[in-house]
């Protein structure tokens, strides 16, 4: 099992009051599995994704990725773990405007330096049809290309878990289809993908779809016997 989330609860305290964003959410994603969480805006999808990626400490519950429980690590080690294990893709791409395509992809290597990062970056650009765009700035790219750059960056350090937050939110259906194909590819090659979206059509591309509403998973499938084992 790549990702196992158990009894996750997250509350936001704000001047306007306490918001219960997640309420006892448990789920797991295996290696080679593409899981989608579908839910309306405000249902807690982004919160769930960040919590799973070691970016947001839950109030209750555990997150376990492979053999690692990221929230038991100190921030420094958690960052290193994230660099090597997790890839993020967001709706807003979050590309550095002053770096070209190749440099944006290679920015991920700052977190996990390795000699063959340039080779892997080139391979990813080839695969995502970005080779001709290597020296272009994000402003010169279409939104589909931008999102593929973001995906290449997420994959540069060969993570085992890919977390995608509305990755097709700004894409037309053609580009969305291409991106989802890549995500499916990643899973097919042994990666674990957790995608959150409000879009039903996107969710349908996954191997498995879970529905989140008001911080709770609907029709929570009964835990399998393996899930209940103490390890």
């Amino acid at each position, binding site marked *: 099992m790549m990702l196992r989330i158990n009894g996750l609860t997250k509350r936001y305290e704000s001047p306007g009051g306490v918001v219960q964003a997640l309420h006892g959410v448990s789920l797991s994603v295996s290696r080679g599995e593409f899981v989608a969480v579908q839910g309306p805006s405000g249902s807690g999808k982004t919160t769930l994704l*960040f919590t799973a990626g070691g970016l*947001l400490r839950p109030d209750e519950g555990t997150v376990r990725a492979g053999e690692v429980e990221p929230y038991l690590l100190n921030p420094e080690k958690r*960052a*290193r773990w994230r660099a090597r294990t*997790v890839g*993020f893709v967001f709706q807003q791409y979050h590309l550095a405007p*002053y770096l070209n395509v190749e*440099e944006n992809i290679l920015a991920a290597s700052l*977190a996990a330096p390795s000699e063959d990062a340039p080779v892997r970056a080139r391979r990813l650009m080839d695969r995502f049809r970005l080779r001709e765009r290597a020296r272009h700035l994000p402003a010169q790219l279409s939104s589909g290309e931008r999102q593929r750059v973001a995906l290449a*960056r997420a994959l540069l350090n060969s993570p085992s878990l890919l977390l995608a937050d509305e990755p097709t939110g700004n894409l037309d259906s053609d580009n969305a289809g291409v991106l989802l194909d890549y995500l499916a590819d990643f899973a097919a090659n042994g990666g674990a993908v957790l995608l959150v979206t409000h879009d039903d059509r996107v969710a349908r591309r996954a191997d498995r779809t879970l529905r989140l509403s008001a911080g709770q998973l609907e029709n929570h499938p009964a835990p399998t016997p393996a899930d209940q084992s103490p390890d």
Partner: protein
Amino acid sequence: MTIWRLVFKEILHRKLSFALGLLSVVAAVTCAVGATSLLAAHDARTAALLARKEAELKSQMAELEDDMRKAMLKLGFNLVILPKNQDVGDWYADGFATEYMPEDYVHRLAESDIVTIRHLLPSLQQKMTWPEMRRTIILMGVEAEVPKLNKSPRTPLVQPVPRGAMVLGYELSQGLGLEPGQKVRLMGREFTVQRCHAERGTKDDITVWINLREAQEMLDKEGLVNAILALQCICAGPAGLASLRSDVAGVLPDTRVIERGSKILARAEARAKVGEKAKAALERERKARAALRRERERVAAFLAPLVIAACALWVGLLAFGNARARRGEVGILRALGLRGRQIMLLFLSRAFAMGLVGGAVGYAAGLFLGARLEESLEGAAGAVGLGGLLRPGVLPAALLGAPLLACLASWIPALLAAQQDPARTLMEQ
């Protein structure tokens, strides 16, 4: 891909914000370096000015000394040491002494430790009739000067007259038609005229100078003299004569000291005073320059930290703005796994680059500005060159200090950026 490349690219991307910060660092360094180079220029100009004035003073003093020497030469000797029982009235009236004292006195004086006397000239004088010429003359036997042993030897004021030679006053040489080289008899002895003086309008005009020994033999006064001429050192000062009298009395109790030619001495003293005044003026100038320097130092010591602090604040504010503008970027970098320290490095490297470039540019600008300011304060004439502005340690201080300052000013924004919660910023986007 390195942090440096990222920093470099970001700087190129946000040129204006970086340039504003850079300008601020340049201003701070320019101010600090300008102040030090202004002071350096001040020092260099002061040194040149004082050196010039010192040289002027030196040549003025040399001139004065030369003048003095000439005055002294004209005066000859200004002290006369006479036997104590000599009637001074007679001496003044006749122009020569009639009493005697042992010639040895001059040696006692020479070997004494009186330092305010130079040049000692013993003489034996007598008013007489030149038997062969039937003329009244003053016969003056003189010897070579007796050196003062505790003084460095000096060129003698008078030439000794060798045996058989004679030096004649103007009246005699004219009246008798004598010229150097001619032979003439005096009291039965033959002399060769060695020299004839020009007219002096004193008793010198009727004086015959011969060798002291010969005079003693001729006048039957062996081992005796009746006057010792001496020169009082000008260094003795106005109070010198009184102390000299008692000093001489201590060595030669039965003598008296008479001073002559004090007008010339007074003139010489007045000239010496001019020298003193020039020295005092130089000292005043030196003090005025030092005071001016202190004042400039005070202004610099007040202004430079103020400008530096203001610039640091501005750099800090700009860094804060930069960090705010890059919240999303920092958020994604953290999500990618960059550690807080790396984020900090990202911002501090930028500040470092700003400081380094600003330090170099500010150093050059500071040198230029310092020189210009100094020139406008003191005039282009005598302005010092670049060499006078350079101070060791200022360039390293600028190249190390400016980056350090920029990093310190950016520290808090960098820290805040490193500590920002990536989840929150990414959700806000």
